[in-house]
């Protein structure tokens, strides 16, 4: 029984990170109907920036909470800018072209970041130590790592903050309006470009935090590290209902739990198969996802 609890806790901790990345996918999809495949690589850039800042400030030698915050802020700043630039240069010129063009461009941006990263940072994994290493919590036979606790707290806080932004601020209302019908929103005086840029920046900032948390949990960084988590988060977003913010959180958690239970009780070899099996299943049975609402085709 203790193992089951441990698997659940591990699953929630992985799932929280998937959820943070999935939020970026889902927001961009909600607003632009574009699957931003470069999102996983923005996540990688966040972790890489964290590594460099940590080395520059000497934080990797003597990690502290304040330093970790500084590193997270720097990574958020860089990734936010990167998200803005990607949207401005790669997606905006194609906004009125067929959707397939944008999708292929997204894959191109993803490759650009991955292999540009290999060129720039080198392909070797490096040790990432940002959060102070402390003993985790032990509740009976179940143990909860320090990084896991931080991950959970930060993820939940960010998700609440995001929920507030989307539902209780002016820009959030504008985002929802653009998501609902961008043409009408534009007629109502909403600045579409601004809203879309804001969405990209917000998603990228979340990816940066996820990158720092992920790299602290599995303390290595390398340029292709965004590939798998990016794909998994995409599955999570689809599972929850793409375009739906609470759906992304739920999808992330469900996926994280499913992975850990499968590798705990079946075999870790099946872990990725299950994750992508879930994607296929959702698309077949309930294409709108767990929380997604079906949209009547507009004529």
């Amino acid at each position: 029984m203790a193992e089951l609890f441990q698997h659940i806790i591990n699953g929630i901790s992985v799932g929280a990170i998937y959820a943070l990345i999935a939020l970026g996918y889902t927001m961009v999809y909600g607003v632009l109907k574009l699957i931003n495949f470069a999102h996983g690589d923005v996540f990688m850039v966040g972790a890489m920036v964290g590594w460099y800042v940590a080395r520059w400030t000497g934080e990797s030698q003597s990690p502290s909470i304040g330093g970790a915050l500084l590193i997270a802020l720097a990574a958020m700043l860089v990734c936010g800018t990167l998200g803005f630039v990607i949207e401005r240069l790669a997606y905006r010129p194609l906004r009125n072209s067929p959707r397939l063009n944008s999708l292929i461009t997204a894959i191109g941006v993803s490759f650009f970041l991955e292999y540009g990263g290999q060129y720039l940072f080198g392909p070797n994994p490096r040790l990432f130590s940002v959060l102070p290493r402390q003993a985790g919590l032990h509740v009976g036979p179940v143990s909860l790592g320090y990084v896991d606790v931080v991950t959970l707290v930060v993820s939940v806080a960010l998700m609440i903050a995001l929920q507030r932004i989307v539902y209780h601020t002016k820009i959030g209302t504008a985002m929802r309006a653009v998501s609902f019908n961008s043409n009408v929103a534009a007629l109502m005086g909403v600045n579409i470009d601004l809203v879309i840029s804001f969405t990209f920046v917000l998603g990228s900032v979340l990816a940066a935090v996820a990158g720092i948390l992920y790299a602290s949990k599995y303390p290595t960084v390398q340029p292709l590290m965004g590939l798998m988590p990016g794909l998994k988060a995409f599955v999570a977003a689809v599972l929850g209902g793409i375009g739906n913010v609470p759906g992304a959180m739920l999808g992330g958690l469900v996926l994280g739990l499913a992975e850990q239970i499968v590798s705990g009780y079946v075999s870790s070899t099946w872990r990725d198969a299950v994750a992508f099996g879930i994607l296929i299943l959702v698309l077949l049975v309930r294409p709108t996802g767990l929380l997604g609402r079906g949209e009547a085709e507009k004529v």
Partner: protein
Amino acid sequence: MRRILPTLLAVAALAACKKQDQGSGMMSPNATGPIVIGEVGSMTGTEATFGLSSANGIQLAIDEFNAKGGVKGRQLQVKVLDDQGRPEEAATAATRLIASEHVVALLGEVASTRSMFMAPKAQQAKVPMVTPSSTNPAVTEKGDYIFRACFIDPFQGYVGATFAHDNLKVKKVAVLKDVRNDYSVGLAKNFIDAFTKTGGQIVAQESYSNGDVDFKAQLTNMKAAAPQALYVPGYYTDVGLIARQAREVGISAPLIGGDGWDSEKLYEIGGEAIVGSYFSNHYSPDDPSPRIQEFVGKYKKAFGGQTPDSLAAQAYDAAGMLVDAMKRANDLTGPSIRDALAATKAYPGVTGNITLDQNRNPLKPAVVLKVGKGGKYEFVTKVYPEGMQPESGSGGDTAAGGTKTGGNTAPAASPGSTPATGTAPAVGATSSASEASNTGQKQGVPSAEHPKK
């Protein structure tokens, strides 16, 4: 008939042309320029230190041979291709080296999986290939042009099992293997066979795939079985992460592994979590044998003070063994070099005397190292295969004689739970590795005496 004749002539002419082409292709090894040896290695990627260390070792050996006048009056040149740690790339690199660089022989890969991708290409082209460090038995089974300079997994698994049983005195061990890696799978199997034979019990078996970063689920299951040690025959990046997560889920038992751990990155990634764990390896730079110390000195001088890991030492030996064979070969064609390589007898390598058996595998001792504080590897003990006496001067150093074999003067300082520091193998043994392996003992079924006090 009148029509057929010109056609026949044309075909004959074409055939002649083709033959000539082949001829010139075959001629290139006998030209006067430098002799080109191909090397395939993971110079980048998660096992980059494997490729880089090996390349250094090979370069050092080749430079020495060149300084001594090369082979058959010609200088040697190494052409290195990076496979980024990917098996398909290793096969492509081997093909490229054979087809466009006309290499006389191939060195590499470190990883067994990648060597197995290269081997068919070498075999097909009749280009001899020597892998410095691929320990999976299946590698040399790919064909009679494939050789290796290291011991094989059945022996390494046996070393791990013997060590766990005799030195650590553990009875319950859990195994965590990389299912996508032939090396890891083979080693795990051989460890399990040998360990159960000693009366030990495997309490849990779990697996992961190379590149995974989350092992908590497997480790949680293993913890429930309360193992006294974990056998983790993986590569250093994965092992470092596994060690960390094992401590996080509350497993405090030591980890045991194989030569795939050998990299300074192991401690960089594993940190304190890996300290106190053990792995079997090909050699220890702390071994006081003069032959090893001379090599360590030369290597440090050539590469800015870096201490050679065992991959560098193995690569140095593999290159040495190959060049030695090239010197003995009648000419520099594939078949001649192959025959000379197959006849290798008591080649005095840094990692031990190398004599190849009929399966082109050497019979050599292994060392067990402990990861100490600050990531320093401490020499713990040396394990010999069956029928093999500890040579004088670890590595069969004929000049030294006597009590040089590692262990007695090696860091006896390793504190705490190191049970076997200073296990000095029999003193002054004169029988060399060559004699031992000539008894027709098939390697891979070692039931050897463990040189204990």
